[in-house]
């Protein structure tokens, strides 16, 4: 295949970057030197059933059931779905509608923690080497592992390689291009062994030749820590990458590391690459080493509105309020709380909503960051065109979307290829929310498509 040949040609080449993109200030200084701490267990844990693309999980516990920490409480609702586990030992108190981060209500399982339980877990290593590929995929699904970078795509789906294709490279995404976030940075430094162990598991299971860990150059300590931990002869290398947003977008990362473009509508596996986030690989390592499913994750709590920024291990289902309270609470000037990074994360409506598997950060922003510039007419300056990593024409999109010419956006200008990274809005001097216009257009186009069928 031509593309595999391309990869072979560029094997030794690491161009370190993709074209276009933007350079926001990275604001990582607040937390990059802070070791990961464990957030104490709270009382009430809310586990929404649908935390990712695909089918929601199906509850397998009853109201009032006693559950143990790490016990499965909901099974996958389909192939593109993962299991859910109790983050604490306690009792199921509600199965029903609960607050979700975006302000809506969603079905969830609520667990009240047993205040007197030590919350210890038995260590049950799983012999991954003995597992068949099918069983391995089943285990990853059963462990509830999703992409930890933010999108929370069920991880095992990526490992289900159709016949005829093969994976040559396991690419581990440690770019962490979102400003403020340092959870991947800290994990690469503190959980280096687990990362390399998990990488070895996945590499062997996928039959990949090499593991490449892509890390932006603004994390030199992480690069050194990884390089020191890689044993001679181990098929792992670190690829330092230019500091540029969105370096951690899957297809941008593949371009940066292998100089290969994943064709539109195709997946990384079509060019022989599997991409996993640092946190995902560590979660897999922990599962096979100790039997601990995905019940907690590392979260960066930062931003100018947070009193004591921190990198925390947060049991999933903890409310955002508890996480912020542990970090000293919100300063009075806080205007906005964002779940995830400031570029692609979402503003949240309610601090009582739970932390999800995909919540990489909790950021508190003040007037300074949240004030929007006055919107002026587009002067066609072209900054968005120069910023778009997909080489789309955002200026055109904004104009067409305002005229509701959504069909033309799709047919002539490939709007559906947009990954909504937000570079266009970031770079616009006229303060036009371009990516929001694009989201509107894509939603409209999707709903129209649904009607036709």
């Amino acid at each position, binding site marked *: 295949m031509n593309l595999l040949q391309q990869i072979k040609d560029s094997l030794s080449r690491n161009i370190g970057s993709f074209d276009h993109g933007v350079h926001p*200030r990275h604001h990582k200084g607040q937390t990059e030197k802070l070791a990961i701490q464990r957030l104490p267990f709270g009382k009430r844990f809310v586990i929404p059933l649908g935390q990712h693309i695909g089918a929601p999980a199906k509850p397998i516990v009853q109201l009032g059931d006693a559950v143990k920490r790490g016990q499965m409480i909901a099974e996958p609702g389909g192939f593109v779905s993962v299991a859910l586990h109790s983050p604490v030992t306690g009792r199921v108190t509600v199965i029903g509608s609960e607050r979700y981060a975006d302000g809506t209500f969603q079905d969830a399982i609520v667990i009240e923690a047993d205040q007197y339980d030590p919350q210890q877990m038995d260590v049950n290593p799983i012999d991954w080497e003995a597992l068949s590929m099918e069983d391995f995929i089943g285990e990853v699904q059963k462990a509830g592992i999703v992409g930890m970078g933010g999108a929370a795509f069920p991880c095992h789906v990526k490992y289900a390689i159709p016949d005829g294709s093969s994976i040559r490279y396991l690419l581990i995404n440690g770019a962490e291009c979102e400003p403020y976030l340092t959870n991947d940075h800290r994990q690469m430094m503190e959980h280096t062994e687990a990362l390399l162990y998990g990488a070895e598991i996945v590499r062997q299971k996928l039959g990949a030749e090499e593991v490449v860990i892509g890390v932006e150059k603004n994390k030199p300590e992480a690069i050194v820590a990884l390089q020191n931990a890689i044993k001679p002869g181990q098929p792992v290398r670190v690829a330092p990458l230019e500091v540029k947003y969105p370096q951690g977008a899957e297809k941008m990362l593949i371009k940066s590391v292998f100089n290969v473009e994943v064709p539109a509508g195709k997946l990384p596996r079509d060019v022989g690459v599997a991409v996993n986030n640092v946190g995902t690989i560590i979660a897999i390592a922990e599962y096979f080493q100790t039997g601990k499913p995905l019940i907690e994750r590392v979260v960066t709590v930062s931003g100018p509105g947070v009193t004591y920024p921190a990198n925390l291990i947060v049991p999933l289902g903890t409310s955002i309020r508890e996480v912020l309270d542990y970090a000293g609470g919100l300063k009075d000037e806080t205007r906005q709380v964002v779940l995830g990074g400031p570029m692609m994360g979402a503003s949240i409506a*309610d601090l009582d909503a739970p932390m999800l598997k995909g919540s990489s950060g909790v950021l508190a922003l003040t007037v300074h960051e*949240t004030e929007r510039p006055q919107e002026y007419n587009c*002067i066609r300056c072209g900054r968005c*065109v120069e910023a778009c990593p997909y080489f789309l024409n955002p200026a055109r999109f904004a104009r067409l979307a305002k005229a509701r010419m959504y069909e033309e956006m799709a047919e002539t200008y490939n709007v559906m290829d947009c990954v909504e990274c937000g570079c266009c809005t970031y770079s616009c001097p006229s303060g036009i929310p371009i990516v929001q216009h694009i989201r509107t257009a894509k939603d409209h186009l999707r709903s129209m498509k649904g009607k036709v069928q």
Partner: protein
Amino acid sequence: MTQKDPKLLIQPGPQLRQQMTTPAVMRDVWYALAPTTLAGIWFFGIGALLLLITCIATAVLTEWYFSPEDERRYFLGDGSAILTGLLLGLTLPPALPLWMAVVGSAVAIGVGKTIWGGVGSNLFNPALVGRAFLLATFPIAMTTWTAPGDFFTMPSSIFALPLMTGVVDTVTQASPLGLMKFEYTDTGFVELLFGNTSGSLGETSGLLLILGGLYLWWRRDLDWRIPVGILATAMAFSLALYMMDSGRYPGPIFTALSGGMLLGAIFMATDPVTSPLTPKGIWIFAVGIGFLVVLIRVFGGFPEGMMYAILLMNAATPLIDRYTQPRVFGRGLDTK
């Protein structure tokens, strides 16, 4: 609840923005034009200052008149009307009657911009629309060039009553381009560079225009490809002609420094609204202007061709944009 929650703001991402704003871009262009403007006033005296003020005031008033009442703040706030007025003023002959400047400036904003839907929607560079209108309407006044003179002497023609032309009483002098076109006389490039020649207000000092361009480039407000493309093409084309007949055609350096070449290439053609968006399109646009300027100057009826060259390429911009869309990431790969 332990404490009162702050009122949380919900807004779509990205939450971070770069700091540049459109009014700031416009202000940068004012600053970049400041040396040229001051030099024009220095060379041509108080009359030039009056002419510029007239142009700017008329532009702002026209914009005010045509903008919707509740949005005037933003229409005027972006600073583009002031810029259009200033740019128009810089392309006018220093002794032009003020009432003509008023007409030109009103046309620039009214016909050049507002009827298209305001900033960002116009097809042609507004200042050049105003100038083209004036050149077509008052061809004599628009091609009467005065020599730089005493600072406090005002040419009486600028106070001509509306619909009157007025007598030009100061020393008139053909512009370097006119000398070249009609008398085949070269002007030394030192004079062209420092600006002590006759011509439009803002066209005379090449050095200050380049300085302004460098400032804009440093501030990332200017697409360097446009001036570079225009100048390179125009110089290459005129070099070819010059080598054929050096007595008849001007050399490349004269071509680059004379007339509105630098003002046009650095400040007019680079108007983002009326130039293409796509990288390939920008090169086509620039090369097109460079080629057309020399073509008009050498083979056309006017000594100067910058204005028409830019306006022609402005007209082609939507077409250029349409056919030069960059290859979308992951599309059009030659696989399978």
